[in-house]
């Protein structure tokens, strides 16, 4: 779990406990199938994506409360806008499951958001968080400024 030190006080107000009962149970491993022998590729992908995008959100991490299998897991995000989201990752891609952390079920009045699959966490965050886009852009500008300075230094 990545955390900003200067956490905004309003975050606690928007993070509400799930109203839907969540039953977390261990999925039974296949008897003669080794699909879950090791940490799954899905989980590795999720953790790598979390690390890669953490710089441009307030909070992000794999949910500890919701189910986690080689086929399915959930990621909690609080964007720089202080909006909370629970993101589902499956073989189909990345999807906004709900607008509350640790909650699988979305608001049926926003079906367009919850039925859209993205190819990466990056493209999903680019879509739902304007400040993610701005932060990504700013960091890129910063990197490119370093490049320019580095170049002009070596030209002297």
């Amino acid at each position, binding site marked *: 779990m990545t955390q900003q030190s200067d956490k905004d006080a309003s975050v606690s107000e928007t993070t509400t406990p799930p109203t839907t009962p969540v039953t977390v149970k261990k999925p039974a491993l*296949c*008897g*003669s*199938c*080794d*699909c879950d*022998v*090791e940490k*799954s*590729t*899905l989980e*590795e*992908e999720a953790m*790598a994506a979390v*690390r*890669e*995008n953490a*710089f441009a959100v307030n909070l992000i991490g794999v949910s500890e409360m919701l189910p986690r299998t*080689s*086929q399915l897991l959930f990621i909690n995000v609080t964007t720089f806008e202080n909006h909370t989201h629970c993101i589902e*990752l*499956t*073989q*189909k*891609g*990345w999807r906004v499951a709900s607008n509350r952390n640790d909650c699988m079920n979305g608001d049926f009045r926003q079906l367009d958001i919850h039925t859209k*699959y*993205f*190819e*990466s966490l*990056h*493209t999903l965050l*680019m879509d739902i968080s*304007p400040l993610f*886009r*701005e932060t*990504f*852009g700013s*960091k*890129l*500008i910063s*990197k*490119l*400024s*370093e*490049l*320019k300075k580095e*170049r002009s230094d070596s030209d002297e």
Partner: protein
Amino acid sequence: MNRMRRSTAFSEHVTFHTVMAKRGTGSKLDREVEIQFTNLQLIGTGSFGAVYKAVLRENDEPIAIKKIKVDDRFKSRELTIMHEMDHPNIIRLLYYYVMQQENCLNFVMEFMPKDLAYVHRQFAHNDKQMPAYSIKLYMFQLLRGIGFLHLHNIVHRDIKPKNLLVDESNGILKICDFGSAKRLEKNEPNITYICSRYYRAPELIFGSKNYDTSIDTWSVGTVVGELLHNSPIFLADSAVDILALQIKAFGTPSKEDMAKWNYEYVHIPYDTITGVGIQKFIGRKLSLSTLELLNSLMKMDPKLRIKPYEALTLPYFDDLRDPHYKLPSGAPIPPLFDWLEREYIANHEIIKDIFPRSEEGDKVECL
């Protein structure tokens, strides 16, 4: 449907696993046939599942069995693509079957002994260069295989050394792992895999939804660069850092491209940066033909990237066009120019530039 029984280390008798399976690549028939295999052993965990080696009883051929769990509602796009792609540089799907009780889809594929990442690592660990002939031979076949996919509007989306299977004894390379591949008509997303980051085209890093088959071409360029450099050429921890390295090498993408990549929202008021060039970026002396190949494959502008079959015409591959060219062991190189009808029809204008210069003149043999 016979349930698969696991071999035991203490069995005094050879255990045969018998399953009903459907035929794979190139097959039109949909009926099941009985297949038997033995010597089943787990050799790795691939994407979303396990990979086994075994021996097919009917002909004693080694096979690889990739087992993935499937959601009942989820049609396997990987299966559909592998079933269609009948090509010497694409791994062949021999059979497939479903274990209903376990919701597992099993791909029975031809076995290839090693992947390119493993082979390359053996050189890199000893601070040695992979031989130039090996790189040319493998990259020719990679480009031919990628070209075949692109003819069918299929983009692989996960080209990296680990997904390229090779047989060093005969010089053959085959593309595998179509878990991320898709036909571009369908606007279906898919997950990119953990090791793909170094091989991502700039438009993907920007989050473009409007990419095309040329993202594979960029990946081929990064693979060539890696084989020459002994490590990924855009090696960094985050997407922004990888992008910065790409810009350092090749310069900033145009504003038009950035707008096309759905990046209109953020105005980036940076001046354009000219790249240092791939040779200076890698820090290694490269031949002119190598530079030409790398620069053709890795253009920041996707429209300017060379097409895979067209890349085969470049001087970099001239050695392979010599009819007398052989492997160091003296064995002949694999057939590189035995074009399929589909390949010939699509490339008839450049085929003569790819063919070897034979002593009998420009004799063209085709189907």
